[in-house]
């Protein structure tokens, strides 16, 4: 009886694992098939080098660069904000804060990631942008600065929580070694603990980057919907994800070239996050070897 139960549990676990893999493969397949159809009509070289993205206009251009630059710009702003803040928080919690405080602050911070992103989007549009406009006069109503900053707030817990885990996992013997040599807390944190935890910290940053690249609602609401090849954070831009939402919600005919653009954009996004995931997996593997 016991044995049958074991077998049953084992099989159902295997089935769930297989279903997950199949769904993933299915998504990749659909993405690829539609993307291949797209590239039959639009040469891949145009897709990569054209500096305009106007598939919905009469004068059609299919250059991914404006969307890509929008994604990279907003993500860069988010990361530039979230990494220093998140890392400082993690060092504070792990090395400075009393133990009881550590227990309550971590879940509180993780709440930041649980706020619906649409709320963040409106926060960026209706609070942060007007606030920034008060001292950046030329700032447009839609802009990557405000969207990027708010996205940065959202991903702070990704950086701080995982980095804190990594710092916390550094053996106490290293802390004692550093203090024993006469280090201050600050020297101990930055010269010994952060380098010792660097692989875990890098993984947390990569995860935050993938989260920023894939983020949709905040940028769709606050950064605008104007594909534009620019590095100027004060003007409206459009990200890959925001474009996909725009077309999916619009009345584009299924199976048309315009419709297929979202798959071409989607696969570009997928390649980016896939590379980031692989990279972080490699680092994590190396990390594990180091401590065993």
């Amino acid at each position: 009886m016991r044995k049958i139960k074991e077998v049953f549990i084992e099989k159902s676990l295997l089935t769930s694992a297989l279903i997950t893999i199949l769904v993933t493969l299915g998504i990749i397949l659909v993405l690829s098939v539609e993307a291949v159809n797209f590239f039959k009509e639009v040469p891949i070289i145009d897709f990569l080098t054209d500096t305009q993205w106007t598939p919905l206009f009469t004068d059609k251009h299919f250059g991914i660069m404006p969307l890509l630059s929008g994604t990279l710009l907003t993500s860069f702003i988010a990361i530039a904000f979230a990494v220093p803040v998140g890392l400082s928080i993690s060092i504070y919690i792990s090395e400075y804060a009393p133990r009881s405080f550590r227990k309550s602050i971590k879940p509180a911070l993780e709440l930041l990631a649980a706020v619906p992103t649409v709320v963040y989007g409106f926060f960026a549009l209706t609070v942060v942008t007007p606030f920034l406009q008060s001292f950046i006069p030329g700032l447009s109503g839609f802009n990557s600065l405000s969207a990027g900053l708010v996205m940065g707030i959202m991903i702070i817990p990704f950086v701080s929580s995982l980095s804190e885990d990594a710092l916390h996992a550094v053996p106490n013997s290293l802390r004692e070694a550093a203090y024993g040599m006469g280090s201050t807390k600050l020297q101990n944190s930055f010269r010994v603990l952060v380098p010792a935890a660097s692989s875990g910290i890098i993984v947390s940053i990569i995860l935050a980057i993938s989260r920023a690249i894939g983020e949709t609602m905040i940028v769709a609401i606050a950064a605008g919907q104007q594909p534009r090849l620019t590095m100027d954070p004060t003007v409206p831009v459009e990200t890959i994800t925001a474009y996909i939402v725009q077309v999916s919600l619009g009345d584009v005919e299924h199976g048309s070239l315009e419709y297929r653009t979202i798959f071409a954009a989607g696969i570009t996004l997928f390649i980016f996050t896939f590379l980031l995931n692989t990279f972080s997996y490699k680092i994590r593997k190396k990390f594990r070897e180091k401590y065993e």
Partner: protein
Amino acid sequence: MTQQVNENIVDKSIKRVHKLEARGVKVFYDNFEAIKGIDMQIKANKVTAFIGPSGCGKSTFLRLFDRMNDYVDGFRMEGEILIDGENIYKKKVNVEQLRKQVGMVFQKPNPFPKSIYENVAYGLKIQGIKDKKFLKEKVEESLKQVALWDEVKDDLNKSAMALSGGQQQRLCIARTLAVEPSIILMDEPTSALDPLSTAKIEELIYELKQKYTIVIVTHNMQQAGRISDYTAFFYLGELIEYDKSKKLFTNPEKQQTENYITGRFG
């Protein structure tokens, strides 16, 4: 008071007889009393060994001398610890400065996950020393002192983690020597090492006592007998007997000490 004034006039190079001193020291971890009132004076330029069964408070007591227990949750201390006559638990004491004077070597080798060179240079670098030539010389000198130089001189940039356990422990000692402390505390420094590495470190301790005051916790009574001038026997948070090692190991005063060194308990 007058005595202190007199001592300040005395040339610094003349070593004081009592380097370390504990006065009425009690230690608590929350409500547990780990050290139950110890008075002790430790001589300069000698090796003093702490022995006693596991859990009797040797590490706790040793770590008082560089304030390493300060980071332990629930730690509380009563009494005074003096180094060269100064109470190191006074408010205005700079703990970082204190630890440059009092080096510590731990039970398990704990090199930083950095290169061999960076490990030895660490203590100097955090003091703000940037002079490359000086650092290089100091690294070489310290590694020579622990007889590690010949083994590692061609790959100073190699990770310290790649060294053997014995080499790592000698590296940790070199790292401590580089900042020129006057006191070195060692908490069972050879208990994780093979006999050959242990012999090397014992030899090293013997040489170091010319220049340093060394306090070493050890589980190994033969080791205490071989390398120490004085031995202190601790039991359940109390200092039971403290004497010249020769005397303590051959003709102890207390029954408890005799039971312990003859292996009848602990």
